[in-house]
């Protein structure tokens, strides 16, 4: 008998080196350029809001896991990502207790009450943003957006999308200002350049697939092109303004709440683009990215059911018949 020990184990025998914390760390790295940009644009207050959001998210996760007598999951860094994303969706002037309230809503209500990481049915940061928007409309919109970088004077101005909504096209910032984020808006959404940098990093590291961001933004661009009767200039404002790029790269690509099939991703992204455009063009709010992603999040199980790929060699008909029989029974 050979004395060499052979390990007998069940499959899988080859494991990927990807871990949850590794992927989350990549997302955090991708978010850092936008953080630097927001601190430059909005001042130290932006950093403070981000730190408060991250700390309260991590604490909320730790405490709620302890209360529910489940293992502590803060080391997977997902709470840190939620905290950063939540902060990026808030104006820099927001009172800090609202940031803490939003973090608790995101982690406890949206994530842990549904079972923790991988179980939430919508994106926690976006759900918290929407709850904050409907709870504190004053602190979350309009005059809450300031832009203190311009010669040490705090300038309060409407966000570019609100300006478009009101039809005051003359007071729009230039497209170059829009691209580098020298406009008013939420912390993380203003600097398109930093966000695209982070997005490219994530695509290169294969953390996200570029399908959803590209299809999402193209859908909005196409619909805006039709709405503004071919005015490319306005289309550029619509893409760079608001949370479209932040949402498309970092929130519409969340693993838990978006489809895993290729076709499903396309359907999801087109749906997001459609709802965003409809809200921006016809809704009472200037911005619709958060609502569109949340609404499409809810459709994800159905999208995945309809786009399940056919296994090689499998016949389609019997499966449908089986389904019908089940439905009839």
């Amino acid at each position, binding site marked *: 008998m050979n004395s060499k020990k052979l390990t007998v184990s069940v499959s899988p025998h080859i494991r990927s080196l990807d871990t949850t914390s590794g992927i989350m760390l990549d997302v955090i790295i991708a978010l850092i350029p936008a953080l630097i940009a927001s601190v430059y644009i909005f001042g130290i207050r932006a950093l403070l809001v981000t730190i408060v959001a991250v700390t309260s998210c991590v604490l909320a996760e730790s405490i709620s896991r302890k209360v529910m007598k489940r293992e502590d999951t803060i080391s997977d860094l997902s709470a840190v990502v939620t905290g950063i994303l939540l902060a990026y969706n808030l104006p820099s002037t927001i009172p800090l207790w609202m940031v803490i*309230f939003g973090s608790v809503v995101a982690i406890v209500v949206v994530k842990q009450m549904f079972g923790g990481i991988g179980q939430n049915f919508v994106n926690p940061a976006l759900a918290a943003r929407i709850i904050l928007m409907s709870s504190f409309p004053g*602190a979350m919109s309009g005059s809450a957006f300031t832009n203190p970088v311009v010669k040490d004077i705090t300038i309060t101005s409407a966000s570019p999308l609100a300006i478009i909504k009101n039809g005051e096209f003359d007071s729009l910032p230039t497209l170059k200002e829009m691209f580098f984020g020298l406009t008013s808006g939420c912390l993380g959404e203003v600097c398109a350049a930093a966000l695209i940098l982070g997005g490219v990093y994530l695509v290169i590291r294969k953390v996200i697939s570029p399908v959803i961001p590209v299809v999402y933004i193209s859908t909005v661009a196409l619909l805006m092109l039709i709405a503004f009767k071919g005015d490319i200039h306005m289309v550029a404002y619509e893409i760079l303004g608001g949370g479209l790029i932040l949402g498309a790269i970092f929130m519409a690509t969340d693993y838990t709440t978006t489809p895993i099939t290729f076709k499903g991703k396309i359907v999801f992204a087109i749906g997001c683009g459609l709802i965003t455009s409809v809200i921006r063009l016809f809704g009472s709010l200037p911005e619709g990215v958060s609502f569109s992603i949340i609404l499409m999040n809810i459709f994800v199980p159905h999208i995945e059911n309809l786009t399940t790929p056919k296994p090689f060699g499998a016949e389609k008909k019997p499966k449908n018949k089986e389904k019908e029989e089940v439905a009839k029974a």
Partner: protein
Amino acid sequence: MAEKKSLRQELTKGFIIENPVLRLVLGTCPTLAVSTSVENALGMGIAATIVLICSNVAISALRKVIPSKVRIPCFVVVIAAFVSLVQMFVKAFAPALDESLGIFLPLIVVNCIILGRAEAFASKNSVIPSAIDGLGMGIGFTFALALMAAIREFFGAGALTIKVLGKGFSIDITEQLAAIGLEPILIFILAPGGFFVFGMLIALANKIAENNGKPKATLNGCEGCPMASACAVKISDEEASAQ
């Protein structure tokens, strides 16, 4: 009824263990709509309680006369009569309440709690237990409504108005809150906040009932229903999960 309960039990079961809103999940629509202020909640609760007691008594007294095939229309006619009476009284003596309750006052006619008690209890029991059941369920409804309204009003508007027919007291702490940089969380007054508070209170009532040895309310079959003993329809677990 599978088991005979004492009158005291008939009264107290509606408070929490068989609370119509939190355990039987009946009358959800007026609960969510009216629980934005304690004043409205109390008005609604008292109006519904009066209708509930009167209709339970009338239906119980008539239970041997009403043919079972047309019992539901008969119940509705009896309930509608009492609702019309209550509505006239409210219009005459508390016009402000009538205005703020709006359509939900006449809609007591089709309130599931009242129809449900008529069907599940009054049509099978004698007059005195039915009156007691109506009172207990009414108190349970009013209590659940007022508790929900108190939470929603306090967090959502920063105020608490406990008034019945214009008498009572009110607290408004919005200014004190503003002084320390806080403001009311508006979403509690809106529909999503209503659903959230509702869900939390259902969980709490479930926990209390469980501690008292009652089954946890679940979606699987009749076993999970607090009304199982009084209900004529039986659905097995398989049928329930197939639905």
